[in-house]
């Protein structure tokens, strides 16, 4: 019979396997989710409606801030130009990463479902802000579009996903506490 390992290891030694497990599951979830999202029926049934929702939401909010914008499928038409919302601009990858982390994290399924639902709404909201911002920039300062589109908003969307995950993680830790692990010695 194999004996139980002593619990007297250093903190780092104990944490490493769990963090590694979380990261491994996270990577597996990202890969699996990425493949799932690329399937034709997921594209037509989920990603395309989501992208169209982004386009119509962006046009509606842009009109509220005084820009004459209209949505046409996945395009947002504004004054002289248009923005096409493609893969990478629809917030799906940020949502995928967030969901991959939520599912990889050790938590009860009910809290995971709550996290996924809340995360979906939050990412959609932030992505609408991002798209409206990009429409405003494309309309009034097109020379800054690349900076905002590629550098600022890509980083911000990752930060938002991390922030949502940390908030959810803190909530999980408070809602499902367990005792301080015993240490020998």
């Amino acid at each position: 019979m194999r004996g139980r390992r002593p619990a007297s290891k250093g903190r780092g030694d104990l944490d490493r396997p769990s963090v590694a497990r979380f990261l491994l599951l996270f990577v597996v979830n990202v890969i699996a989710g990425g493949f799932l999202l690329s399937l034709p029926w997921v594209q037509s049934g989920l990603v395309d409606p989501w992208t169209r929702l982004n386009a119509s939401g962006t046009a509606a909010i842009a009109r509220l801030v005084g820009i004459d914008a209209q949505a046409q499928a996945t395009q947002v038409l504004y004054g002289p130009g248009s923005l096409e919302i493609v893969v990478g601009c629809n917030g799906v990858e940020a949502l995928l990463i967030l969901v991959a982390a939520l599912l990889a994290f050790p938590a009860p399924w009910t809290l995971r479902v709550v996290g996924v639902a809340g995360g979906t709404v939050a990412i959609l909201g932030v992505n609408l802000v991002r798209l409206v911002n990009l429409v405003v920039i494309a309309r009034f300062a097109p020379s800054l579009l690349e900076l905002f589109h590629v550098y600022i908003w890509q980083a911000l969307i990752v930060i938002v996903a991390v922030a949502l995950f940390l908030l959810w993680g803190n909530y999980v830790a408070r809602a499902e506490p367990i005792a301080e692990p015993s240490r020998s010695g």
Partner: protein
Amino acid sequence: MRARNRSPSRPAAASGPGRPALPELGRAAAALGICLVLWPAWEWSGADEAYRRAVVGLAERIVLARQHFPLLSGFPRLAPPNADFVVLFALGLTAASIRVGWRRRLVLLLVALGVTSGLQTAAAVASINLESAQEMERTHRILVLLPTEFQLVNQAKLTLYHSQLAVLFALFLLTSPWLSELNIGRETRPGKRRRAILGAALGAAVLLGASIAWGRWRESDARHVAAHAKVGHLFWAKRDDGIAEEQYRIAAAGNTVDPEVYFNLAGISAQRGLFKDAARLLRRCAELGTDAAWQARVARAFDRIGAPRRPESP
């Protein structure tokens, strides 16, 4: 006694994961700030273009070394999506994570950059394969990638691009004190490492087996066999008989129904003085090319090599 129904991998609140999110937001803001400060220098110095060229150049080399059909000699037109912000943000993030030791930060940065450039290179390889496949189908009607393969490679490309953001996400967490403060999974189960190694080995074996099985299945697919035949014709027309023969042999091994393959192979065999082999190939050609034009061509070829149309009885 510990409660048995508790998952060993549940987070522990006792060590205080619920710290204010403000320092983390400050770190994120600082990282973004550093990223934006670095950006003009990155562009001005030409590092962005150099980085992109390096990624595309490496991808090109990989494609050229591993291409199944010897069709590409270069792919200079590839313009991968601008993803160098991942590099800049990773730099900013590690610079801003002052609560983490510099050695750990350096290691994490190097790993993140290695993984990111690997992902970008792999995505560029996928892009080259997809774009060249589309071009070959458009210009020569050659199906370099079967529809399922095309879909798989396209899915892989999208996943690789998604994964770059996941690297930043993981780097953010790994440079955050938050993750280690959660103390997830404090209890380590006996044999866990062995099971993990076994699982990884099993996964690798399954992937390897699937890859071999896929390769075999592909070589027996009529559309793929036809592609080998068409590539052979391309090189035959260019008088590059070496590559043409190689492609024809693959097509013949896959039982192609293209009589031209057997006819040209017969010509190659005849040139080498292998008349029996040439006659055998011409007979196969005659079986497949049943129209009058083919029959006449085959008859003239038999006359040229001086072999009987019907195999001699032993």
